[in-house]
């Protein structure tokens, strides 16, 4: 039986109707929050056909799944989805609602929060239950301070940064209840004229959340292909110190350092970069610096938070494959 004041995860369904990787992460996170507060883990799924999604959500730990089904929900329409989820939240009466901070999540959750007149923290990096209330932590002022938010009312909403939790492991033996919620879909106010996909434009260095940079030690342009692979995994951009740009392995527009671009990403991965002063003054604002270099005395280690001493040709594959596992990609 669905209990009140539970932890409700709003599933984001792929076009084929399956919960995406971020949703499984939220369920992993939600399970921890539910356990720590003695509340029930629940999920919500809105779509054209939610049966298979409901089964996966239950197998992934949801004790109850609230579904809203209908042809109107074939593609994401903010007004329809907010109206549906508003009804689900009224029905479920949760204490916390979790949404992925994805392209759809960023559009959906502010509307839902205002519709519910509920507190919302976006892009949260960690969540706790404190005295039955959701406490969400996130960086503010561009990472210059970390703030913990608690909502006055109930439920409290949070959109969670992808990668902030460990995905739940599906277990077919689990059982759970599916609650159909009937919603009178409002007439759509937006008409969607189709998507135009361009060949993946590179993320700009100045805006990248993650930057993977290569130095002289890469030895050639081929090394940068491996960096591009790692950067793609982390949704980041590829930069370079001066020597590779000078040797023509990487364009000068992507050079990082005083005589290149000054960057301030969340994560800066320096691969085979010794760490000249010109380069370091370009990356000092990075929140976290990770260095891979075969020379233990390389100056880069003195300004890094994490490091591995070793040949990048071997270290990088190990790093990338484990990240692929972690992200379930």
């Amino acid at each position, binding site marked *: 039986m669905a209990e009140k004041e539970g932890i409700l995860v709003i599933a984001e369904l792929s076009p084929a109707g399956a919960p995406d990787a971020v949703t499984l992460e939220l369920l992993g996170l939600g399970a921890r929050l539910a356990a720590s507060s003695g509340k029930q883990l629940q999920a919500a799924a809105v779509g054209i056909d939610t049966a298979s999604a409901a089964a996966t959500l239950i197998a992934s730990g949801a004790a109850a799944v609230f579904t809203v089904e209908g042809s109107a929900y074939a593609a994401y329409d903010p007004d329809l989805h907010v109206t549906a989820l508003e009804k689900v939240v009224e029905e479920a009466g949760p204490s916390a609602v979790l949404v992925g901070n994805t392209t759809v999540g960023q559009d959906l959750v502010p509307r839902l929060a205002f519709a519910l007149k509920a507190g919302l923290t976006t892009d949260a990096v960690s969540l706790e239950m404190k005295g039955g209330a959701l406490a969400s932590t996130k960086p503010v002022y561009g990472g210059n301070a970390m703030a913990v938010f608690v909502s006055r009312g109930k439920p409290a909403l949070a959109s969670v940064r992808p990668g902030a939790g460990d995905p739940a492991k599906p277990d077919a033996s689990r059982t759970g209840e599916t609650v159909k919620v009937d919603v009178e879909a409002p007439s759509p106010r937006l008409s969607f004229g189709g998507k135009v996909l361009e060949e993946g434009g590179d993320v700009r260095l100045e805006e990248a959340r993650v930057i993977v940079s290569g130095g002289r030690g890469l030895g050639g342009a081929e090394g940068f292909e491996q960096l591009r692979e790692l950067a793609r995994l982390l949704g980041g951009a590829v930069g370079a110190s001066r020597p590779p740009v000078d040797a023509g392995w990487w364009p000068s527009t992507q*050079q990082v350092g005083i*005589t*290149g671009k000054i960057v301030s990403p969340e994560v800066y991965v320096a691969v085979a970069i010794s760490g000249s*002063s010109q380069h370091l*003054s370009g990356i000092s604002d990075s929140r976290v610096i990770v260095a891979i270099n075969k020379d233990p005395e390389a100056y880069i280690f003195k300004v890094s938070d994490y490091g591995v001493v070793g040949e990048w040709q071997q270290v990088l594959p190990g790093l990338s494959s484990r990240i692929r596992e972690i992200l379930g990609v």
Partner: protein
Amino acid sequence: MSDQDLFAYPRGRLHAADKDLAASLQAMVQKEVMDKRLELKEDYDGLLAPSLARLMAEVGLQKMFWPEKLGGEEHNEPEAAYTVAAALEQIGRADVGLAFLAAHSLALQAAVAAKGSCREELCAAVAPLFCEGNRPLIVSFVLPAMSQDGGAPEWRGKGIQVRAKSGPEGWTLSGKAVRPTCSGADAGLFGVLCAVDGEEPAFILVPGDSHGISREKEFLKTGLAASRNADLDFEGVKVPAANCAWRGEEGFLNLLSWFYLGLAAAGSGALLAVYEIIKEWGDNRVIKGRGQVFKENPLTAALMGEIAKEIAVDRLLAYNLADILSDPQAYGDDGPLAVFTSALMLVHHIYVSAEYTIHRTMELMASAGYAREWQLERYWRDLKTVQCYLGAYELAKHDFARRFYHTKTL
């Protein structure tokens, strides 16, 4: 407080609009020029031409003085001298070449469209080139110069490069191997000092597309990449009578005074950029192995102090010149010659000081001071080129002597 504010200038004399314009230009040139410098270096088409178009047309520096009814901003009070100084300082900080070109346009506007002295006929003839459409207009001057032809009519010893004959339908100009001050290859309007047989010289505004102007190939020079200069031939160039801005010396001296204000501000701006470069260098360079940073070593610190002093004084001098032009009476108005001499003295002083200052800065930076990537050497080449186009300092000293010692035959 940004580093620039360390260098005093008469902030109180500038209108809020001047400061806002300067702040807006600073943001623009930082993004459109300085941040693209490493990649585009001094590329004319990729960097300098688009920036020039943005400065002259979009922000509208080429419309500043013209009457509103002709599409101008009619910002033509004498106090506009401060606006010119504040604007050209920020442009000069990013690229002295762009400031050099802007100084031409603003000087011509100030000389021709100043409040109360704007002749209806002349403005109507020329203002459209500045105010209509959104195209940048590059203005260039043809001033007296040491020439090969010994017999040419002279102004203060230097040959006047172009002769003009006035006829019923206007002026006819002729001159061989004429060296303009800038942009011979692509200027849209030339301000030409012309000798008129047996009469006072005439300053005539000649559209760049006038029939009879032939432009030689662009030549290479030390700096100022934004000025694509080339020598010109004037063969029977016909120009309407209305295009004669003034006759005799007074109008010409006034034009040069505003031109020198522009160059003084551009120099001061470039030196602010030099300060930022040496400050960064002084903070990071370690010498003598004892981990002593440059700025802490007594010898190099003394030199860095002298560099700051020169820059501070040069900035004050540039704004002092703006003050002179904004209120000549306050300096005892003896007419354009007094203002011209002050302008000439101040601008030459600034450029001699700028050369000295950048030499010291470059010595401190050793090879990096000379490498293009660290940006310093470009200001060094550009400012030296401006000083050459300003004229020989040695001969300017004669103008000082004429003023202070009332010489007769000099």
